[in-house]
C-alpha cells in the first residue's frame, strides 16, 4: 500500500474536487499559477493540460511554465524567477528531496501554495510548508509492469531489466518496484540481464548488446517508452520475434506495435491529466483556506491491446492516435 512521506494514507485523486461554490469564490480574484516542471515531455504536457483546464474553470491564469532539464540549480533559479511573477499557486515536481529543500524555501516564505508532484523536499511539513502531494502510484506502475510481462511469458523465463541510471525519484521507484515484484512474486522468472540507461538515444546499442549476450530472453522491461523504440529496433535487427516488452507511458510507436501484435505486450501508464487536475484542485482548495489532503494518489493503468482506446483517454484525456484506432479495426 502506497503511503505518504509522513505515513499519511493515500487519498484517491477523484476525491479532490472543487465545488461550484469553490469555483465561484475563486473567480475574479486575479489568482495566478506557475508550473515548475523538472523536464518537458508528453507526460508533462498531459499534466499541464489537466492543470490548465482546472485552473481555467476557476479563472486562474497560468503565468509561468518552466523546464529545469533535470538540473537542480536550474530548478532553484526557475523558482526564484517564477516568484517575480507573484503566483499564488505553484505546481512542481521537486527534482530530488535534498536539493529542492532549499530551492523551494523562498516560495514557502512568500506564502505561495505549493503542490508537489510525486515527491517532496525533505523536511517539508504538510499544511505549513506545502498544500499537498499528488502522485501517480509509482509502486503500482512498476508492479503492474512486472505482472503484465510475467503474464505474457507464462510466469516463467528470463528477462532483462533496463533501468534509469540516474537519480530521479519517479523512475527509480517504478524500476525498483518492477524488480522487487519479479523477485518476490515470480520465482520462476529470473532477471538475467540488467543495464542502466541515461540517454534514451543509446537504447538500441544497449539492447543489442543485451540480446547478443542473452539471445534467449523472454522479456525486457524498459524504463519508459522512448528508449523502448530503440529496444524494438534492436529486436528487429536481431530478427527476434520472441522477446516481449513492457514499458511505461503511452506513446504512439510502442502503442502501435502492441496493437499490431508486436513485441510490446503492455504499457503501464498513470493518469497524467488527472494528476494535473488534482494538483490544481488541491492548490486552489488551499488558496480557499480549505484543507487539501496531504497525500493524493492517482491509480496506475495497465494498457493492453484490449483497452488501448480507453487507456489513452483515461491517462492523457485525449483520443488514442488515429493510427492505433485504425490498427484496432
Amino acid at each position, binding site marked *: 500500500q502506497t503511503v505518504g512521506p509522513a505515513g499519511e494514507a493515500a487519498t484517491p485523486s477523484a476525491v479532490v474536487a472543487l465545488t461550484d461554490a469553490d469555483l465561484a469564490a475563486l473567480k475574479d480574484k486575479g489568482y495566478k499559477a506557475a508550473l515548475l516542471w523538472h523536464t*518537458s*515531455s*508528453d507526460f*508533462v*504536457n498531459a499534466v499541464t493540460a489537466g492543470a490548465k483546464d482546472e485552473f481555467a474553470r476557476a479563472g486562474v491564469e497560468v503565468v509561468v511554465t518552466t523546464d529545469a532539464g533535470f538540473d537542480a540549480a536550474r530548478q532553484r533559479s526557475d523558482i526564484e524567477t517564477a516568484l517575480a511573477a507573484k503566483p499564488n499557486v505553484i505546481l512542481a515536481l521537486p527534482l530530488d528531496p535534498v536539493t529542492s529543500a532549499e530551492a523551494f524555501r523562498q516560495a514557502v516564505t512568500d506564502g505561495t501554495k505549493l503542490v508537489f508532484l510525486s515527491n517532496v523536499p525533505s523536511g517539508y511539513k504538510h499544511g505549513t510548508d506545502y498544500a499537498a502531494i499528488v502522485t501517480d502510484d509509482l509502486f503500482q506502475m512498476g508492479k503492474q509492469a512486472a505482472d503484465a510481462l510475467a503474464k505474457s511469458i507464462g510466469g516463467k523465463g528470463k528477462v532483462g531489466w533496463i533501468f534509469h*541510471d540516474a537519480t530521479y525519484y519517479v523512475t527509480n521507484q517504478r524500476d525498483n518496484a518492477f524488480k522487487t515484484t519479479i523477485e518476490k512474486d515470480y520465482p520462476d522468472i529470473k532477471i538475467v540481464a540488467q*543495464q*542502466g*540507461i*541515461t*540517454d*534514451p*538515444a*543509446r537504447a*538500441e*546499442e*544497449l539492447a*543489442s*548488446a543485451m540480446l*547478443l*549476450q542473452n539471445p534467449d530472453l523472454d522479456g525486457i522491461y524498459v524504463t519508459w*517508452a*522512448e528508449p523502448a*523504440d*530503440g529496444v*524494438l*529496433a534492436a529486436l*528487429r*535487427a*536481431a530478427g527476434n520475434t520472441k522477446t516481449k516488452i513492457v514499458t511505461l507511458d503511452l*506513446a*504512439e*510507436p*510502442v502503442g*502501435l506495435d502492441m496493437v499490431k501484435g508486436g513485441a510490446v505486450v503492455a504499457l503501464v501508464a498513470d493518469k497524467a491529466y488527472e494528476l494535473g487536475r488534482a494538483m490544481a484542485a488541491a492548490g486552489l482548495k488551499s488558496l480557499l483556506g480549505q484543507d487539501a489532503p496531504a497525500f493524493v494518489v492517482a491509480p496506475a493503468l495497465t494498457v493492453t491491446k484490449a483497452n488501448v482506446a480507453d487507456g489513452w483517454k483515461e491517462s492523457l484525456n485525449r483520443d488514442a*492516435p488515429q*493510427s492505433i484506432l485504425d490498427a484496432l479495426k
Partner: protein
Amino acid sequence: MPQSSNGVAPAAVTPFARLSRRINFQQYVVYLGFLAIFLFFALVLKDSGFLTVRNLTNIMLQTAPATIMAIGLVFVLSAGEIDLSFGSTVAVAALAAAVAMETYGIAAGIVIGLGCGLLIGLINGLLVAYVRLPSFLVTLATMGLFAGVARSLTDLRSIPVTNSTFTGFFGSGSILGIPSLVWWTVLAVAIGHIIYRETRFGAHVLATGDNSRAASVSGISVARIRVAVMMISGGVAALAGLLYAGRLQAAKYTLGESDLMTVIAAVIVGGTLLNGGKGSVIGALVGSLMMGMLNNGLILMGLSVSDQMIVRGLIILAAVAVSLREKAR
C-alpha cells in the same frame, strides 16, 4: 645564370622520402587509435561476443547516422566554421518526414525531410556568410531555435513511421544481403570523400578554411562556400534523421540531441582540424566507428553507466595519445 633548370629539386630528396611522401604515413597515424581500441576489446571481450559478425555489424548499423552527420561536419570544419545545430536538424527532419509521410506518402516525406535540413543549413549559411556572424553563435542559436520547433511541431510526442518501403530503404532493410544502413554509410562516405578530395569544390572548401583571404583573392566566393558547407551539414543531418526514423520506425524531438559531442569528437579524432584547412572524410568514418566500438565494447564489458563513462574517458585519452600527438619539430 646559375645551374637552376631544376625548379623541383630531386637532389635533396632520398628515394625513401619520395615513397614516404606518396604514402604519407603521418596521415594514417590517426587510425592507430582505432586499431588499438579494436585489439583491446578483441582481447578482453573475446568470449563476450565482441568479435561476432553480428556485433560488428551492429556497430556499423548503430554508427551510420553519426557517420553521415560527421561527413557534413568535415566540410564545415574544413571551411573554418562550426555547426552546433545539426542535432536539432536531425529531429526536425525526422519529424517533418514522419508527419508528411502519414498524409502525403513516402516521396513527400523524403523530400520534405531533406528539404528541412537544407533550409536550416541555408539559414545558418546566410547568417554566417552574408551577415558575417560567428558560426558558433549562429548555430548555437539555431540549435535551440529548431529544437524548439521540433518540440512544438509535434507537442513532444513520438510519431510512428509505418511505411515499410521507407523503413526498409532507410532503416531495417537490406539490398543484396547487405543492410541498407551499410549501403548508406558506404555511399555517403564515398561521395563525401570524392567531393572533398577530388573536386574543385572540395579544394575551395579547404582553401577557404585555410586562408579565406587567399581563397577570395583567388576568385573563390568564400561566401558561397560557407553557405554550401552549412547546407551540406544540414542536408546530411536530415538524411541521418531519416535513417533514425527508418531504423526506430518512429520520430521524436529528442533524436540527434545527444549526437553533437560524439560526432565532433569522431571528426576530430579522424584528423580534421577544428580550425579549418585540413580534414578527412575517411578519418571521420574511422573516428565514428571508433566511438561506436567504444560504446559497444564498454557495454559488453558489463560496466555500469558511471564506470563506462570513466573508462571511455581513459580510453579516448589513450587512443588520442597514440594518434594525435602534435608533431614536434
